[in-house]
């Protein structure tokens, strides 16, 4: 646990020293801000953060992998993986540490958007329930996106490849939900269970669907597990 914390802290500091986290956060804030204020269909009709959430989902799918692509691919490329695998630290501690480090950036990113609901509270009377669950959903979805990004970063030494593959997986997981509508009902329903887009609307409406929570948590667990195995596997190359 101590090692995980030490690695997480190191990764967090690395983020603060490199431009990527700042760029990603800025773009995230700009676009969610625009959606929150201008393009939201709900503008002036309801005091909600739906516009921000809808934009946030897509942005997190695209930006999560940009944040994580460096985490292991760079270690592999620069040879520092040799350091990391020869000090007395478990592979799982390495992966979890890096995951928590990137999670901290996600939290900062989401934290910076808290002024949207704050504005709503100042100028109106929003329902706090959907805001809270919306943030929870966004956090779960963002974490899943990071976990998938860490997995793809662990299988290559090329950061671009890591990011592209992760975005591919994420978009596929997101859009199969829409494809499910065109399929025979039973099949569509089964496929719908695996879709990221299937669960998010509930969170936006203010419902904490345990199926959704479990879905995101198990996706996270699965891909972190795969990342650990891929790290282990590099010893047997």
């Amino acid at each position, binding site marked *: 646990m101590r*090692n995980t914390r*030490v*690695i997480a802290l*190191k990764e967090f500091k*690395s983020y603060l*020293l*490199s431009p990527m986290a700042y760029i990603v956060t800025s773009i995230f804030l700009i676009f969610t801000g625009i959606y929150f204020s201008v393009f939201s269909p709900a503008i002036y009709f309801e005091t909600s953060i739906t516009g921000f959430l809808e934009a946030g989902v897509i942005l997190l799918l695209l930006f999560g992998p940009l944040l994580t692509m460096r985490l292991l691919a760079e270690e592999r490329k*620069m*040879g*520092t*993986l*040799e*350091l990391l*695998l*020869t*000090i*007395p*630290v*478990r592979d799982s501690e390495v992966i979890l540490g890096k995951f928590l480090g990137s999670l901290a950036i996600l939290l900062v990113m989401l934290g910076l958007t808290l002024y949207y609901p704050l504005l709503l509270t100042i100028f109106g009377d929003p329902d706090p329930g959907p805001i809270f669950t919306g943030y929870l959903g966004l956090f779960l979805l963002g974490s899943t996106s990071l976990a998938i990004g860490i997995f793809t970063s662990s299988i290559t030494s090329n950061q671009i490849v890591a990011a592209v593959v992760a975005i591919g997986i994420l978009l596929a997981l997101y859009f199969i939900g829409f494809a499910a509508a065109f399929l025979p009902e039973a099949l569509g329903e089964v496929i719908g269970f695996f879709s990221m887009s299937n669960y998010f609307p509930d969170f936006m409406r203010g419902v904490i669907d345990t199926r959704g929570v479990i879905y995101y948590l198990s996706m996270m667990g699965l891909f972190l597990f795969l990342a650990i195995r891929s790290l282990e596997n590099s*010893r*047997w*190359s």
Partner: protein
Amino acid sequence: MIRVENLTKYYGERLAVNNISFNIEKGEIVGFLGPNAAGKTTTMRILTGYLAPTRGNAWVAGYNVLSQSLEARRSIGYFAEAVPSYGDMTVRSYITYLATLRGMDKARIKKRIDDVVDICHLEEYIDVFVGRLSKGFRQRVGIAQAIIHEPEVLIMDEPTVGIDPRQVSMTRQLIKDLGKDCTILISTHILPEVSMTCERVIIIHEGNIVAEDRIENLSSLVSGTRRFRLEVEGPTKAVSEQLRKIEGVTKVSYAGSQYTVESTAEQDPRGKINEAMVKGGWTLLSLESVEMSLEDIFLKLTAEEEEESDQ
């Protein structure tokens, strides 16, 4: 302290280490000698837990490198050949980071950092980003992180490659000093280094151990050969041809008017060399017997490989 038994490593189809076994006792400084791609780095990477062997077993400080990997890694300090380091950290934070992950507490790290900075002469660079350092200084940082936890076993992969001569001698002295308290396995293809720093040498070639002995005993390994150096005034081709014909001569090589002749130990071809030169009407300017140096032994033992790798 280090025990290797029937270790084999394949990279896909390519055999890198072929069924090697050796033992290193506590407190020994052992040189791991071999040409490039001989299997030195692979063996070291298996010992340090970076790679898993295809077959065979290895123990470091009594711990199996596979089944007790964490314990084994805890007792090792490792200097990797490529000197991997995080460029975005300062020397201090980099060393502290690795030391913390090695389980050292704050107070001990603080004390030891002062020690290793002193040993490796890093005083002025302690707060410089590692990425800004020259290769030589990165190398020192690499050594500093490998010894900060006072490991029982120190594994160093070519620690003196690519640095200036002054630092090379500093590094060698450092290895000697460290050897008082810990067991050291150091790989190199620089021969004088081995005779300067090590007590024992393991020569590896194409994944096989071709020789393993104390340095002073090694020459007996190739005692089947004697070597002579001569200088002759005459047509090179004809002279070397004549030299080859002499009984007992196994090898002739030349550069300009200098010739090197090897013969079997039982024969002394010097009289016959003289005769042949006179017969050919050439002038023998000098003729001397040459002691085999570690370099010669090494070349002898790895001769085939050298020729291949020249291509």
